[in-house]
């Protein structure tokens, strides 16, 4: 166990959504720690709250969400749930970045890939971009793609642009600069910062092994294939070098062979950038290949947390066991074991342990008290009374 404090710790998070049907109790007493440098896999079925939990870390909750209790501590910046939108803007993209399930929908169709990646840089690292832009002033080869007359205009204006850029380096919000941004030819000085951002975007695209990155940076999302779009998403997420990368079903919309490329890329980049990854998926195979620790979620609760090996070899929670048995492996048994029943409606979740109506091991106590996560073996936490009793670590909350 590392003695360092975890990068993110979610403590007793209870989160509801107000809807016309009533309160959807999306998360109930969720406790989860993300250690530095690990890949934590969160696995669970549709509606189990895995996406909500990850969005809460980013502060990306829908307006009808209601945090009932709990906190999310992000090591460097404090409790994310109490931050204002302005404070969150500084964290998002910079400290935490996210890759979404469908790259086609997450990218802006009206911007080129290079501009979208550069946008994050211009937002979070304007100073560095200004500095780099300043070096480009007067260098006509940097504007090589522009027509001759435009290059000449830029050359003629370079003294003005240079002074404006140095002014921006000192203070971007000066009144004189704000005025200059309204003057047609003068405001073109910002083209240099954009150029600098574009150059870094291309470099990032090269790192995610995009074929022909220079060309791809000038393309729109619809011109790229699914796998290339996902590479662009990854580049966008990593360009600010975040300490935490949240990957929400990064390969679900992709084909197997493309999935393989993306998973390999994520593994490689993790080593290269020394990132912490929160990987959310319903695919047990993907979890097993990539993550070092796994949390299993069911109906808004975390039911089991363990390192990948002991979770797959020695699952303790009956839901985890059911999930592992329901997935067929090549050359496996000829009858799949089903989990009877279906996922409960979270407006009216079952009392006590939320899994008890579908559980084969359910006892009387399971419907009366809510189990807490208890460490039954080193690094192996489980929230199930029968499993806890087996290890002599039964923990019943007084109600």
């Amino acid at each position, binding site marked *: 166990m590392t003695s360092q404090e975890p990068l993110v710790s979610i403590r007793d998070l209870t989160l509801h959504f107000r809807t016309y049907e009533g309160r959807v109790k999306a998360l109930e007493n969720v406790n989860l720690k993300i250690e530095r440098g690990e890949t934590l896999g969160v696995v669970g079925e549709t509606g189990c709250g895995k996406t909500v939990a990850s969005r809460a870390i980013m502060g990306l909750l829908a307006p009808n969400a209601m945090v009932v209790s709990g906190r999310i501590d992000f090591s460097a910046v404090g409790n994310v749930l109490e931050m204002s939108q302005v404070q969150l803007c500084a964290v998002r993209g910079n400290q935490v970045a996210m890759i979404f399930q469908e790259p086609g929908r997450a990218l802006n169709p009206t911007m080129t890939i290079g501009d979208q990646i550069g946008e994050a840089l211009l937002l979070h690292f304007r100073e560095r971009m200004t500095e780099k832009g300043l070096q480009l002033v007067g260098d006509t080869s940097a504007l090589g793609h522009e027509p001759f007359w435009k290059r000449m205009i830029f050359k003629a204006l370079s003294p003005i642009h240079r002074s404006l850029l140095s002014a921006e380096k000192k203070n971007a919000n000066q009144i004189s600069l704000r005025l200059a941004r309204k003057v047609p030819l003068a405001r073109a000085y910002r083209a240099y910062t954009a150029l600098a951002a574009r150059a870094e975007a291309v470099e990032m695209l090269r790192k995610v092994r995009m074929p022909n990155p220079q060309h791809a940076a000038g393309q729109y999302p619809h011109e790229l294939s699914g796998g290339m779009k996902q590479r662009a998403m990854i580049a966008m997420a990593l360009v600010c070098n975040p300490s935490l990368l949240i990957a929400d079903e990064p390969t679900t919309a992709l084909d197997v*062979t493309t999935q*393989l490329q993306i998973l390999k890329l994520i593994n490689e980049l993790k080593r290269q950038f020394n990132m912490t990854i929160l990987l959310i998926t*319903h695919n047990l195979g*993907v979890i097993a290949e990539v993550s070092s620790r796994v949390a299993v979620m069911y109906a808004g609760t975390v039911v089991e947390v363990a390192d*990948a*090996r002991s979770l*797959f070899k020695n699952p303790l929670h009956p839901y985890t066991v*059911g999930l592992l048995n329901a997935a067929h492996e090549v050359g*496996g048994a000829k009858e799949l074991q089903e989990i009877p029943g279906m996922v409960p409606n979270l407006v009216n979740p079952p009392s006590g342990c939320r899994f008890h109506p579908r559980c084969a091991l359910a006892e009387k106590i399971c419907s009366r008290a809510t189990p807490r996560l208890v460490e039954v073996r080193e690094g192996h936490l489980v929230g199930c009374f029968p499993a806890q009793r087996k290890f002599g670590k039964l923990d019943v909350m007084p109600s």
Partner: protein
Amino acid sequence: MTQTLVEATNLKKYFPIKAGLLKIGGYVKAVDDVSFEIRRGETLGVVGESGCGKSTVARCLLRLIEPTDGEITYQFEGSGSVDFLKARKRELHELRRHMQIVFQDPFSSLNPRMLIKDIVAEPLRTFKAASGRGVLDNVRRLLSFVGLGEEHLYRYPHEMSGGQLQRVCVARAIALDPEFLILDEPTSALDVSVQAQILNLLKRLQKELGMTYLFITHNLKVVDFMADRIAVMYLGKIVEVAQRGEFFEKTMHPYSQALLSAIPAADPDAKRLEKAIELVGDVPEPINPPLGCPFHPRCPRVFDRCGLEGRDLHAYLDSNLDIETMKKLAISVRDTRISIAAKDPRSPEALQTVQTLIDNGRKLGQPMFSAIESVNEERRGEVTVIFRPPVQPPLQSAGYDHEVSCFLYHPLNTLSGH
């Protein structure tokens, strides 16, 4: 004993690309000359990545879309052999009683304004298989067959979960006791635990009702569970067909091998990812598919007979020469012909680099260069490379009930007639 139920021969479906009011700018070859048979009582699993044409094949088999060319023959019990594509409207209606389909997304394949009982009763009414009170009795029987109860009769689709809706779709499909059922990705929209329920249900129904399945999926784990025989499709073509056991033990086609190795295993010790065969690039556009074997540009075991062509050399130069050199070259490709010229005839260095690259490659016998028929310098400052005419690998037997379309498994002499 094994009888053929469906036989498709040289099935083709080309979708025209409109380039104007009356002009056609080319065709998307969604299904390109596919032949296969489905035997009575078996499950044929069709696997492939998105866009490989597997769903189009299913739709052609039901004539939900008209195939461009080819022949489909059905042999239903007691009705002899039927040429399905020549059937008239009346006949077609009668034939369709024997064939049904279950789609991928149960939410969009059920009418949201109809009650479950009416949805399941619809085929019974259309084919006058029951009337009056018999209809509802039949619906009850069908619903209990798929594990639903009395309480679901008077519900609308939005009141039910995905797994339950997929059960309704299955109940509707088996209402007329069909002989042939097409399952087009029936479980890909469902969660793992529900997926297990539906797969077990489908298996049970097949045993009890003696149906023949065509099971389409992109998930090799599911196909291993369901299918008796497996067909792998790539870019509108079937590249390998084999019995399940044989397929997983003796996978032949390099594409099938790559697909199999790419499945992540639910075992953290396996670390299959590291050993997996990673394919380069993306699936090419089916508008202008590669010549010869459609898989050759991405194949890790490509050799000179696979149909290497101008585009491949162009891509090779792109990745092996630096950008500056490439900028100095004018390259034009037409099928197996590629002309490379220096943009500026006064500085032929770039062209010389290309020539040494080709010469060295030919000396070393690299597959890209041993497929070259001739290199001509017709004009000064222009090199034309011509590749040998491409031959498509035929789908040929390569083992017991195992067909593969790859030259690695076909000795040269079978090629003589192409």
